[in-house]
Protein backbone atom coordinates (compact mmCIF):
# COMPACT_ATOMS: atom_id res chain seq x y z
CA UNK A 1 0.00 0.00 0.00
CA UNK A 2 2.80 2.38 0.96
CA UNK A 3 6.30 2.22 -0.42
CA UNK A 4 8.79 4.65 1.09
CA UNK A 5 12.18 4.95 -0.56
CA UNK A 6 15.06 6.84 1.02
CA UNK A 7 12.89 9.40 2.73
CA UNK A 8 14.82 12.33 4.17
CA UNK A 9 13.61 15.55 5.67
CA UNK A 10 15.36 18.59 7.04
CA UNK A 11 14.13 21.71 8.75
CA UNK A 12 16.84 24.19 7.83
CA UNK A 13 20.08 22.58 8.90
CA UNK A 14 18.42 20.03 11.16
CA UNK A 15 18.18 16.60 9.58
CA UNK A 16 15.01 15.17 11.04
CA UNK A 17 14.50 12.05 8.91
CA UNK A 18 17.50 10.18 7.52
CA UNK A 19 17.10 7.84 4.61
CA UNK A 20 14.06 5.91 5.74
CA UNK A 21 12.86 3.05 3.57
CA UNK A 22 9.77 1.09 4.49
CA UNK A 23 6.84 -0.77 3.01
CA UNK A 24 3.43 -1.01 4.54
CA UNK A 25 1.01 -3.63 3.27
CA UNK A 26 -2.76 -3.73 3.38
CA UNK A 27 -4.16 -4.87 6.71
CA UNK A 28 -1.00 -4.12 8.66
CA UNK A 29 -1.15 -2.28 11.95
CA UNK A 30 2.16 -0.55 12.42
CA UNK A 31 2.98 1.08 15.73
CA UNK A 32 5.81 3.60 15.81
CA UNK A 33 7.55 4.27 19.08
CA UNK A 34 10.55 6.40 19.89
CA UNK A 35 11.83 9.24 22.04
CA UNK A 36 10.50 12.77 21.75
CA UNK A 37 12.00 14.59 18.80
CA UNK A 38 12.98 11.41 16.97
CA UNK A 39 10.86 12.43 13.98
CA UNK A 40 7.75 10.27 14.39
CA UNK A 41 5.27 13.07 13.71
CA UNK A 42 7.34 14.39 10.85
CA UNK A 43 7.38 10.90 9.34
CA UNK A 44 3.57 10.61 9.46
CA UNK A 45 3.17 14.10 8.05
CA UNK A 46 5.40 13.21 5.12
CA UNK A 47 3.28 10.13 4.41
CA UNK A 48 0.26 12.21 3.46
CA UNK A 49 2.06 15.15 1.97
CA UNK A 50 1.68 17.65 4.81
CA UNK A 51 5.45 18.16 4.62
CA UNK A 52 7.80 18.37 1.68
CA UNK A 53 10.66 15.87 1.67
CA UNK A 54 13.48 14.24 -0.28
CA UNK A 55 13.17 10.71 -1.53
CA UNK A 56 10.10 8.94 -2.85
CA UNK A 57 6.83 7.92 -1.31
CA UNK A 58 4.30 5.88 -3.25
CA UNK A 59 0.76 5.33 -2.08
CA UNK A 60 -0.88 2.53 -4.03
CA UNK A 61 1.80 3.02 -6.70
CA UNK A 62 1.10 6.75 -7.00
CA UNK A 63 3.83 9.26 -6.26
CA UNK A 64 2.36 11.34 -3.46
CA UNK A 65 3.95 14.55 -4.68
CA UNK A 66 1.91 14.33 -7.88
CA UNK A 67 -1.60 15.55 -8.54
CA UNK A 68 -2.95 12.03 -8.90
CA UNK A 69 -2.32 11.60 -5.17
CA UNK A 70 -3.93 14.89 -4.27
CA UNK A 71 -7.10 13.65 -5.90
CA UNK A 72 -7.14 10.54 -3.70
CA UNK A 73 -5.68 12.09 -0.60
CA UNK A 74 -8.86 11.45 1.37
CA UNK A 75 -7.98 7.76 1.07
CA UNK A 76 -5.28 8.44 3.68
CA UNK A 77 -7.02 9.39 6.91
CA UNK A 78 -5.20 11.26 9.65
CA UNK A 79 -5.97 11.57 13.34
CA UNK A 80 -4.10 14.26 15.24
CA UNK A 81 -3.05 14.56 18.84
CA UNK A 82 -5.00 17.80 19.13
CA UNK A 83 -8.15 16.40 17.41
CA UNK A 84 -8.43 19.35 15.02
CA UNK A 85 -12.20 19.27 14.77
CA UNK A 86 -13.69 22.22 12.91
CA UNK A 87 -14.68 24.49 15.76
CA UNK A 88 -17.41 26.40 13.96
CA UNK A 89 -19.20 23.28 12.78
CA UNK A 90 -21.43 20.92 14.73
CA UNK A 91 -20.43 17.31 15.25
CA UNK A 92 -22.76 16.31 12.42
CA UNK A 93 -21.29 18.92 10.08
CA UNK A 94 -17.76 17.93 11.08
CA UNK A 95 -18.24 14.35 9.98
CA UNK A 96 -20.32 15.03 6.86
CA UNK A 97 -18.62 18.09 5.37
CA UNK A 98 -15.87 16.20 3.55
CA UNK A 99 -17.92 13.35 2.04
CA UNK A 100 -20.64 15.82 1.00
CA UNK A 101 -18.16 18.23 -0.51
CA UNK A 102 -16.20 15.50 -2.29
CA UNK A 103 -19.45 13.75 -3.29
CA UNK A 104 -17.90 10.37 -2.59
CA UNK A 105 -21.40 8.88 -2.39
CA UNK A 106 -25.00 10.06 -2.38
CA UNK A 107 -26.32 12.18 0.43
CA UNK A 108 -28.64 9.52 1.76
CA UNK A 109 -25.78 7.05 2.20
CA UNK A 110 -23.63 9.73 3.83
CA UNK A 111 -26.39 10.51 6.34
CA UNK A 112 -26.88 6.84 7.12
CA UNK A 113 -23.16 6.37 7.65
CA UNK A 114 -22.99 9.39 9.91
CA UNK A 115 -25.84 8.02 12.03
CA UNK A 116 -24.25 4.58 12.15
CA UNK A 117 -20.85 5.90 13.26
CA UNK A 118 -22.32 8.31 15.79
CA UNK A 119 -24.24 5.48 17.40
CA UNK A 120 -21.13 3.32 17.34
CA UNK A 121 -19.38 5.90 19.52
CA UNK A 122 -22.55 6.56 21.53
CA UNK A 123 -22.78 10.22 20.61
CA UNK A 124 -26.06 10.21 18.67
CA UNK A 125 -27.46 12.84 21.01
CA UNK A 126 -24.47 15.12 20.46
CA UNK A 127 -24.80 15.49 16.72
CA UNK A 128 -25.97 19.10 16.91
CA UNK A 129 -23.46 20.36 19.48
CA UNK A 130 -20.19 22.14 18.77
CA UNK A 131 -16.83 20.50 19.56
CA UNK A 132 -16.17 22.97 22.38
CA UNK A 133 -18.83 21.28 24.50
CA UNK A 134 -17.35 17.79 24.10
CA UNK A 135 -14.77 16.12 26.33
CA UNK A 136 -11.34 15.34 24.87
CA UNK A 137 -12.16 11.67 24.50
CA UNK A 138 -15.42 12.48 22.73
CA UNK A 139 -13.64 14.89 20.40
CA UNK A 140 -11.04 12.34 19.44
CA UNK A 141 -13.68 9.71 18.76
CA UNK A 142 -15.52 12.17 16.54
CA UNK A 143 -12.22 12.92 14.77
CA UNK A 144 -11.75 9.19 14.15
CA UNK A 145 -15.20 8.66 12.67
CA UNK A 146 -14.71 11.82 10.63
CA UNK A 147 -11.90 10.08 8.80
CA UNK A 148 -13.89 6.83 8.61
CA UNK A 149 -16.65 8.73 6.78
CA UNK A 150 -14.24 9.06 3.85
CA UNK A 151 -13.73 5.28 3.64
CA UNK A 152 -9.95 5.59 3.83
CA UNK A 153 -7.65 2.73 2.86
CA UNK A 154 -5.30 3.60 5.70
CA UNK A 155 -5.45 5.83 8.78
CA UNK A 156 -2.43 7.52 10.36
CA UNK A 157 -2.67 8.31 14.06
CA UNK A 158 -0.24 10.75 15.69
CA UNK A 159 -0.35 10.20 19.45
CA UNK A 160 -4.15 10.11 19.49
CA UNK A 161 -4.37 9.80 23.27
CA UNK A 162 -1.50 12.03 24.42
CA UNK A 163 -3.70 15.06 24.96
CA UNK A 164 -6.29 13.11 26.94
CA UNK A 165 -6.91 12.71 30.65
CA UNK A 166 -6.19 9.18 31.82
CA UNK A 167 -9.82 8.16 32.19
CA UNK A 168 -10.55 9.00 28.54
CA UNK A 169 -7.69 7.13 26.97
CA UNK A 170 -9.41 3.76 26.89
CA UNK A 171 -12.51 4.94 25.09
CA UNK A 172 -10.30 6.10 22.23
CA UNK A 173 -8.05 3.02 22.22
CA UNK A 174 -11.14 0.78 22.26
CA UNK A 175 -12.53 2.54 19.23
CA UNK A 176 -9.19 2.08 17.48
CA UNK A 177 -9.36 -1.62 18.30
CA UNK A 178 -12.84 -1.77 16.79
CA UNK A 179 -11.59 -0.07 13.64
CA UNK A 180 -8.69 -2.52 13.52
CA UNK A 181 -11.07 -5.49 13.75
CA UNK A 182 -12.78 -4.28 10.57
CA UNK A 183 -9.44 -4.85 8.83
CA UNK A 184 -8.31 -1.23 8.50
CA UNK A 185 -4.64 -0.60 7.73
CA UNK A 186 -3.30 1.67 10.45
CA UNK A 187 -0.08 3.43 11.40
CA UNK A 188 -0.04 4.64 14.97
CA UNK A 189 2.46 6.72 16.88
CA UNK A 190 1.82 6.10 20.55
CA UNK A 191 3.38 5.77 23.97
CA UNK A 192 0.70 3.31 25.12
CA UNK A 193 2.84 0.19 25.16
CA UNK A 194 0.19 -2.17 26.50
CA UNK A 195 -2.10 -1.12 23.74
CA UNK A 196 0.70 -1.48 21.21
CA UNK A 197 1.42 -5.07 22.29
CA UNK A 198 -2.14 -6.13 21.71
CA UNK A 199 -2.83 -3.96 18.68
CA UNK A 200 0.26 -4.00 16.49
CA UNK A 201 1.21 -6.47 13.81
CA UNK A 202 4.55 -4.70 13.56
CA UNK A 203 6.41 -2.26 15.78
CA UNK A 204 8.96 0.26 14.58
CA UNK A 205 11.42 1.95 16.90
CA UNK A 206 12.55 5.33 15.61
CA UNK A 207 15.50 7.20 16.99
CA UNK A 208 17.18 10.32 15.67
CA UNK A 209 15.38 10.17 12.37
CA UNK A 210 16.15 6.54 11.62
CA UNK A 211 14.38 3.23 11.98
CA UNK A 212 16.62 1.58 14.54
CA UNK A 213 14.70 -1.61 15.04
CA UNK A 214 11.53 -3.21 13.79
CA UNK A 215 9.72 -6.44 14.42
CA UNK A 216 6.70 -8.08 16.01
CA UNK A 217 5.49 -6.67 19.32
CA UNK A 218 7.02 -9.70 21.01
CA UNK A 219 10.42 -9.09 19.44
CA UNK A 220 10.45 -5.39 20.17
CA UNK A 221 9.01 -5.37 23.65
CA UNK A 222 10.31 -8.65 25.06
CA UNK A 223 13.55 -9.11 23.17
CA UNK A 224 14.88 -5.67 22.28
CA UNK A 225 18.27 -5.88 20.60
CA UNK A 226 19.72 -2.38 20.56
CA UNK A 227 20.85 -0.64 23.70
CA UNK A 228 18.85 2.48 22.84
CA UNK A 229 15.60 0.58 22.58
CA UNK A 230 16.27 -1.09 25.92
CA UNK A 231 16.91 2.30 27.52
CA UNK A 232 13.81 3.75 25.88
CA UNK A 233 11.58 0.91 27.06
CA UNK A 234 13.07 1.13 30.53
CA UNK A 235 12.26 4.82 30.73
CA UNK A 236 8.73 4.51 29.46
CA UNK A 237 7.75 1.73 31.85
CA UNK A 238 8.33 3.93 34.87
Amino acid at each position, binding site marked *: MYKIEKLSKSFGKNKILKNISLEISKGERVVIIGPSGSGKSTFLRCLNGLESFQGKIFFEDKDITKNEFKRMR*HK*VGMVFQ*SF*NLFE*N*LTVWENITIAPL*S*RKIEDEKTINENAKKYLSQIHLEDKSEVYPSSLSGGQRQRVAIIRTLMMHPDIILFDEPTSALDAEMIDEVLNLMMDVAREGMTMVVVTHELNFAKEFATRVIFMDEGKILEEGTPLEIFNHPKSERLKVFLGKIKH
Partner: protein
Amino acid sequence: MIEWFSELGDRFYQSVIYDERYLYFLEGLKNTLLMAFFAAILGFVIATVVSIIRDYHKETGKLKILNAISNIYVYIIRGTPTLLQLMILYYVVFRSVDISIITVGVLTFGINSGAYVAEIIRAGFDGVSRGQKEAAKTLGLSYFKTMKSIVFPQAIGKIFPALGNEVITLLKETSVASYIGIVELIKASDIISSRTYDYFFPLIITAIIYLFCTFILTKLISFGERRLNRYV
Protein backbone atom coordinates in the same frame (compact mmCIF):
# COMPACT_ATOMS: atom_id res chain seq x y z
CA MET B 1 -29.29 84.12 33.80
CA ILE B 2 -32.77 84.12 32.31
CA GLU B 3 -31.52 86.45 29.67
CA TRP B 4 -28.72 84.04 28.84
CA PHE B 5 -31.17 81.17 28.47
CA SER B 6 -33.52 83.11 26.27
CA GLU B 7 -30.59 84.14 24.16
CA LEU B 8 -29.57 80.49 23.91
CA GLY B 9 -33.04 79.63 22.73
CA ASP B 10 -32.75 82.25 20.08
CA ARG B 11 -29.39 80.96 18.96
CA PHE B 12 -30.81 77.47 18.77
CA TYR B 13 -33.69 78.80 16.69
CA GLN B 14 -31.28 80.57 14.35
CA SER B 15 -29.05 77.54 13.97
CA VAL B 16 -31.65 74.84 13.58
CA ILE B 17 -35.19 76.00 12.88
CA TYR B 18 -34.93 79.24 10.96
CA ASP B 19 -34.96 78.82 7.19
CA GLU B 20 -35.30 75.06 7.78
CA ARG B 21 -31.62 74.82 8.62
CA TYR B 22 -32.08 71.41 10.24
CA LEU B 23 -32.37 70.12 6.68
CA TYR B 24 -28.61 70.63 6.37
CA PHE B 25 -28.07 68.26 9.27
CA LEU B 26 -30.34 65.71 7.65
CA GLU B 27 -28.55 66.09 4.34
CA GLY B 28 -25.20 65.81 6.13
CA LEU B 29 -26.27 62.75 8.09
CA LYS B 30 -27.62 61.13 4.96
CA ASN B 31 -24.35 61.63 3.08
CA THR B 32 -22.17 60.58 5.99
CA LEU B 33 -24.13 57.37 6.46
CA LEU B 34 -24.30 56.74 2.72
CA MET B 35 -20.55 57.06 2.28
CA ALA B 36 -19.70 55.09 5.41
CA PHE B 37 -22.11 52.30 4.49
CA PHE B 38 -21.04 51.79 0.90
CA ALA B 39 -17.36 52.37 1.68
CA ALA B 40 -17.57 49.73 4.41
CA ILE B 41 -19.02 47.23 1.95
CA LEU B 42 -16.53 48.12 -0.78
CA GLY B 43 -13.67 48.01 1.70
CA PHE B 44 -14.72 44.61 2.98
CA VAL B 45 -15.00 43.18 -0.52
CA ILE B 46 -11.57 44.52 -1.51
CA ALA B 47 -10.05 43.32 1.75
CA THR B 48 -11.51 39.85 1.34
CA VAL B 49 -10.11 39.51 -2.17
CA VAL B 50 -6.71 40.85 -1.08
CA SER B 51 -6.58 38.58 1.97
CA ILE B 52 -7.46 35.49 -0.01
CA ILE B 53 -4.85 36.29 -2.65
CA ARG B 54 -2.21 36.70 0.04
CA ASP B 55 -3.27 33.60 1.94
CA TYR B 56 -3.47 31.48 -1.20
CA HIS B 57 0.00 32.68 -2.13
CA LYS B 58 1.29 31.84 1.32
CA GLU B 59 -0.20 28.33 1.21
CA THR B 60 0.64 27.39 -2.36
CA GLY B 61 3.27 29.81 -3.64
CA LYS B 62 1.01 30.63 -6.61
CA LEU B 63 -0.42 34.05 -7.66
CA LYS B 64 2.93 35.80 -7.26
CA ILE B 65 2.03 38.92 -9.22
CA LEU B 66 -1.39 39.42 -7.66
CA ASN B 67 0.20 38.93 -4.26
CA ALA B 68 2.79 41.60 -5.01
CA ILE B 69 0.08 44.00 -6.22
CA SER B 70 -1.91 43.35 -3.05
CA ASN B 71 1.07 44.10 -0.87
CA ILE B 72 1.86 47.29 -2.74
CA TYR B 73 -1.75 48.41 -2.47
CA VAL B 74 -1.80 47.90 1.29
CA TYR B 75 1.57 49.60 1.64
CA ILE B 76 0.59 52.69 -0.35
CA ILE B 77 -2.79 53.16 1.30
CA ARG B 78 -1.44 52.78 4.82
CA GLY B 79 1.49 55.04 4.05
CA THR B 80 -0.42 58.09 2.82
CA PRO B 81 -3.08 60.32 4.39
CA THR B 82 -6.71 59.69 3.50
CA LEU B 83 -7.17 63.31 2.50
CA LEU B 84 -4.36 63.00 -0.02
CA GLN B 85 -5.95 59.87 -1.46
CA LEU B 86 -9.24 61.70 -1.75
CA MET B 87 -7.60 64.63 -3.52
CA ILE B 88 -5.75 62.37 -5.93
CA LEU B 89 -8.93 60.54 -6.85
CA TYR B 90 -10.91 63.77 -7.16
CA TYR B 91 -8.41 66.11 -8.83
CA VAL B 92 -6.37 63.62 -10.83
CA VAL B 93 -8.05 60.29 -11.49
CA PHE B 94 -11.64 61.49 -11.97
CA ARG B 95 -10.76 65.01 -13.00
CA SER B 96 -12.48 64.89 -16.37
CA VAL B 97 -14.91 62.09 -15.62
CA ASP B 98 -18.59 62.75 -15.07
CA ILE B 99 -19.01 61.18 -11.67
CA SER B 100 -20.83 62.35 -8.54
CA ILE B 101 -18.63 63.55 -5.70
CA ILE B 102 -20.37 61.16 -3.34
CA THR B 103 -19.19 58.29 -5.55
CA VAL B 104 -15.66 59.66 -5.42
CA GLY B 105 -16.01 59.73 -1.64
CA VAL B 106 -17.29 56.14 -1.49
CA LEU B 107 -14.46 54.95 -3.74
CA THR B 108 -11.80 56.74 -1.73
CA PHE B 109 -13.01 55.56 1.64
CA GLY B 110 -13.70 52.07 0.35
CA ILE B 111 -10.26 51.68 -1.19
CA ASN B 112 -8.73 53.20 1.93
CA SER B 113 -10.62 51.02 4.36
CA GLY B 114 -9.88 47.90 2.30
CA ALA B 115 -6.18 48.12 3.12
CA TYR B 116 -6.79 48.32 6.85
CA VAL B 117 -9.44 45.62 6.83
CA ALA B 118 -7.11 43.37 4.81
CA GLU B 119 -4.65 43.51 7.70
CA ILE B 120 -7.43 42.74 10.17
CA ILE B 121 -8.58 39.75 8.11
CA ARG B 122 -5.02 38.49 7.83
CA ALA B 123 -4.79 38.44 11.60
CA GLY B 124 -8.12 36.62 11.65
CA PHE B 125 -6.85 33.92 9.27
CA ASP B 126 -3.76 33.48 11.42
CA GLY B 127 -6.01 33.03 14.43
CA VAL B 128 -7.54 29.87 12.97
CA SER B 129 -5.46 26.91 14.10
CA ARG B 130 -3.12 25.40 11.54
CA GLY B 131 -4.35 21.99 12.65
CA GLN B 132 -7.86 22.59 11.35
CA LYS B 133 -6.49 23.55 7.94
CA GLU B 134 -4.37 20.40 7.93
CA ALA B 135 -7.31 18.26 8.95
CA ALA B 136 -9.30 19.77 6.09
CA LYS B 137 -6.47 18.99 3.71
CA THR B 138 -6.19 15.37 4.79
CA LEU B 139 -9.95 14.99 4.36
CA GLY B 140 -9.56 16.10 0.77
CA LEU B 141 -11.33 19.45 1.15
CA SER B 142 -10.23 22.03 -1.42
CA TYR B 143 -8.57 25.29 -0.46
CA PHE B 144 -11.68 27.29 -1.30
CA LYS B 145 -14.07 24.96 0.48
CA THR B 146 -11.84 25.10 3.57
CA MET B 147 -11.75 28.88 3.37
CA LYS B 148 -15.46 29.27 2.87
CA SER B 149 -16.71 26.80 5.46
CA ILE B 150 -14.03 26.79 8.13
CA VAL B 151 -11.37 29.50 8.06
CA PHE B 152 -13.46 32.48 6.98
CA PRO B 153 -16.40 31.97 9.35
CA GLN B 154 -14.06 31.52 12.31
CA ALA B 155 -11.88 34.45 11.34
CA ILE B 156 -14.88 36.76 10.97
CA GLY B 157 -16.13 35.78 14.40
CA LYS B 158 -12.76 36.55 15.96
CA ILE B 159 -12.15 39.85 14.20
CA PHE B 160 -15.69 41.16 14.33
CA PRO B 161 -14.96 43.75 17.05
CA ALA B 162 -11.96 45.00 15.06
CA LEU B 163 -14.09 45.20 11.92
CA GLY B 164 -16.70 47.12 13.88
CA ASN B 165 -14.08 49.58 15.04
CA GLU B 166 -13.05 50.05 11.46
CA VAL B 167 -16.63 50.96 10.52
CA ILE B 168 -16.73 53.49 13.35
CA THR B 169 -13.42 54.94 12.17
CA LEU B 170 -14.82 55.08 8.66
CA LEU B 171 -17.94 56.90 9.83
CA LYS B 172 -15.80 59.60 11.40
CA GLU B 173 -13.25 59.70 8.61
CA THR B 174 -15.87 60.51 5.97
CA SER B 175 -15.70 64.04 7.41
CA VAL B 176 -12.58 64.43 5.27
CA ALA B 177 -14.96 64.52 2.30
CA SER B 178 -16.05 68.03 3.27
CA TYR B 179 -12.81 69.10 1.64
CA ILE B 180 -14.09 68.36 -1.85
CA GLY B 181 -17.45 69.91 -1.06
CA ILE B 182 -19.53 66.92 -0.07
CA VAL B 183 -22.20 68.04 2.38
CA GLU B 184 -21.61 65.51 5.12
CA LEU B 185 -22.13 66.35 8.80
CA ILE B 186 -19.12 68.61 9.29
CA LYS B 187 -19.75 70.49 6.09
CA ALA B 188 -23.41 70.85 7.06
CA SER B 189 -22.57 72.44 10.38
CA ASP B 190 -20.02 74.62 8.64
CA ILE B 191 -22.64 75.91 6.21
CA ILE B 192 -24.99 76.80 9.01
CA SER B 193 -22.42 78.55 11.16
CA SER B 194 -21.16 80.55 8.20
CA ARG B 195 -24.70 81.96 7.91
CA THR B 196 -25.22 82.64 11.62
CA TYR B 197 -21.60 83.32 12.70
CA ASP B 198 -22.44 81.08 15.63
CA TYR B 199 -20.57 77.80 15.97
CA PHE B 200 -22.03 76.57 19.22
CA PHE B 201 -25.15 74.66 18.23
CA PRO B 202 -24.03 73.43 14.83
CA LEU B 203 -20.94 71.81 16.37
CA ILE B 204 -22.68 70.46 19.47
CA ILE B 205 -25.49 68.98 17.41
CA THR B 206 -23.00 67.45 14.99
CA ALA B 207 -21.15 65.88 17.89
CA ILE B 208 -24.37 64.48 19.30
CA ILE B 209 -25.34 62.98 15.95
CA TYR B 210 -21.92 61.30 15.61
CA LEU B 211 -22.09 59.99 19.16
CA PHE B 212 -25.57 58.63 18.56
CA CYS B 213 -24.40 56.82 15.41
CA THR B 214 -21.37 55.29 17.10
CA PHE B 215 -23.53 54.27 20.05
CA ILE B 216 -25.88 52.37 17.75
CA LEU B 217 -22.94 50.82 15.90
CA THR B 218 -21.31 49.70 19.13
CA LYS B 219 -24.53 47.96 20.14
CA LEU B 220 -24.81 46.27 16.76
CA ILE B 221 -21.20 45.11 16.95
CA SER B 222 -21.54 43.43 20.32
CA PHE B 223 -24.81 41.82 19.21
CA GLY B 224 -23.17 40.54 16.02
CA GLU B 225 -20.15 39.29 17.91
CA ARG B 226 -22.28 37.16 20.18
CA ARG B 227 -24.19 35.74 17.22
CA LEU B 228 -21.05 34.88 15.25
CA ASN B 229 -19.28 33.20 18.15
CA ARG B 230 -22.12 30.94 19.27
CA TYR B 231 -19.96 27.86 18.89
CA VAL B 232 -17.24 28.96 21.32
